[in-house]
């Protein structure tokens, strides 16, 4: 039995990269020793019973009992049942019974069983059957346990991989969202030619108003203005190309799964803010074709906004509800509802504008980017008031796989 534990996973530390390769090999089908072929299983059973026979013949003179020493046959039965399952165990029982009858049960070397030996013989057969049954049942339960462990481990490693992916995506996302760096470098790139243009413009005026006017210098200044204007336009074109470099990679995916994954991911953040997130997701929602990272960004923005709106300790209910449902024949709808501070009517028209923010730390791009992402997916994103005082942000996305982007 200790030998069997070497294949057990109990001691194997979960190493995510390796798990992936081993998954398919690790799981063995339930219900018997499926990993061995029938020939090997029954062949082993036969061999073991013959071995038991010769061993018993070899040592029978050592025992002075009226009946010979037959326990080696039980060993053969148990081992056969362990290795080959119930069928092999039974085969071994049958062979053992035949050998015992012929060689060890009086009258010896005949198929008959004397009346005195009958009870002995029958009890041998019953004991062999029971041994076979116990052994194979034990093996089965051991295998079931092993398989459960394997499956559990696969699940853990799958979950770890998924989480790591999500984390990687989120960090990529947050990099994209930290616009500080980006705006600083854009500002620098654009301001340089603008500075040169303004300076050259002033210089040009000075040269023209000199007495006498220095037309050559004025002409050079103007030329420099043109060059720098062109340069600024080039910078803008480069930036636009940068953003366009990666066309959205759309894939069919399960919106509910995406929501659940994100909620899982934010659970900890929510807990530290004492906020609960509840999901109310429609069953069998059709899959939609979207850019995973972009949609994550939208949902993340909406959920984080909802959390931020409830940071005020006076907020009565700290629960975010995320709903999904089918909206008409060709749309799905996702709603993120909070009972936070809500949207004041006077700013309702501005919240989707770039650089509009009510947060002290915000840059005011979240909702603006979210709306443009949803619109690039041919959906709509809007906000309304929640009766509890908070806000509801909803977006729709078209169902179907029409590949009509760009």
């Amino acid at each position, binding site marked *: 039995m200790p030998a069997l534990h070497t294949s057990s996973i109990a001691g194997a530390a979960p190493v995510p990269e390796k798990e992936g390769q081993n998954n398919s090999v690790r799981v063995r089908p339930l219900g018997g020793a499926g990993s061995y072929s029938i020939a090997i299983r029954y062949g082993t059973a036969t061999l073991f019973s013959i071995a038991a026979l010769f061993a018993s013949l070899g040592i029978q003179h050592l025992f002075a009992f009226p009946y010979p020493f037959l326990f080696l046959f039980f060993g053969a039965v148990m081992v056969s049942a362990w290795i080959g399952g119930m069928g092999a165990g039974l085969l071994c029982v049958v062979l053992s019974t035949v050998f015992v009858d012929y060689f060890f049960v009086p009258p010896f070397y005949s198929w008959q069983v004397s009346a005195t030996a009958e009870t002995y013989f029958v009890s041998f057969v019953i004991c062999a059957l029971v041994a076979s049954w116990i052994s194979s049942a034990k093996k089965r339960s051991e295998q079931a346990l092993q398989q459960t462990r394997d499956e559990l481990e696969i699940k853990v490693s799958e979950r770890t991989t998924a989480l790591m992916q999500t984390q990687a995506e989120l960090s990529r996302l947050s990099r994209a969202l930290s616009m500080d760096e980006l705006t*600083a470098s854009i*500002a*620098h790139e654009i*301001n*340089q*030619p*603008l*500075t*040169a*243009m*303004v*300076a*050259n413009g*002033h*210089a*040009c005026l*000075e*040269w023209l108003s*000199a007495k006498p006017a*220095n037309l050559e*210098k004025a002409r*050079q*200044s103007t030329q*420099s203005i043109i*060059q*720098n204007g062109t*340069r600024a336009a080039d910078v803008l074109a480069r930036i636009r190309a940068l953003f366009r470099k990666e066309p959205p990679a759309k894939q069919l995916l399960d919106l509910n799964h995406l929501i659940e994954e994100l909620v899982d991911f934010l659970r900890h953040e929510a807990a530290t803010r004492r906020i609960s997130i509840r999901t109310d997701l429609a069953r069998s929602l059709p899959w939609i074709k979207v850019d995973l990272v972009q949609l994550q960004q939208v949902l993340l923005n909406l959920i984080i906004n909802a959390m931020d709106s409830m940071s005020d300790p006076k907020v009565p209910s700290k629960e975010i509800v995320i709903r999904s449902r089918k909206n008409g024949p060709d749309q799905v709808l996702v709603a993120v509802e909070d009972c936070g501070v809500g949207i004041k009517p006077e700013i309702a028209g501005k919240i989707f504008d770039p650089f509009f923010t009510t947060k002290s730390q915000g840059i005011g791009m979240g909702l603006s980017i979210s709306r443009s992402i949803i619109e690039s997916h041919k959906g709509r994103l809007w906000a309304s008031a929640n009766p509890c005082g908070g806000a509801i942000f909803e977006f729709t996305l078209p169902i179907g796989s029409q590949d009509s982007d760009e």
Partner: protein
Amino acid sequence: MNDVRPTICVVDDDASVREALGNLLESVGFDAQLFSSTEQFRRASNLDGPSCLLLDIRLPGANGLDFQESLQKAGISIPIIFITAHGNVPMASRALRAGAVEFLMKPFQKNELLGAIRQALERDRVQRTENAELIAIQSRFNQLTSRESEVLELVVSGLTNKEIASHLAISEVTTKMHRGQVMRKMNAASLADLVRMSDKVKAYSRKEKAQ
């Protein structure tokens, strides 16, 4: 001294900005010296006449603000106007606290620049006048004999001739004679004038020691 055209040094790694600023400065009658890096400026600067420095903050190799600090440590007191495309409040406050004249955000208008330059040149002029005066006082001070400088010390500390005489164990007549020599050599019109000169030299040597 007034007929010397002031030199404006521009340190910016962006050639088009540098040249545009040079063009603008030239058009309003300044001499502009253009540098693409602080090292280039360091190597080339032999600025005897009135001058100031237009310094970009984001520069290859050195940050403009750090360069300001290193100039100060080296005792170079050229007034600095910072120009930057992406300034923020902490940067500006650091620059101004360290003695920058102005902190201009690119793109800036001619009047902002010229106003800042005028202010910088005025500061430069004051600094130069003070320096020149200090050097003159110092050279006069160096002409004094050791006995005369002893007398000077005691005079400015407020002692009478009699007290000085007893302090130095010399006659009062001799003291008066030394005192007359000191006033003449230092070119001092009054006792108050002498005290002022002495204070300046002391203040300067204190500053030197501090650096």
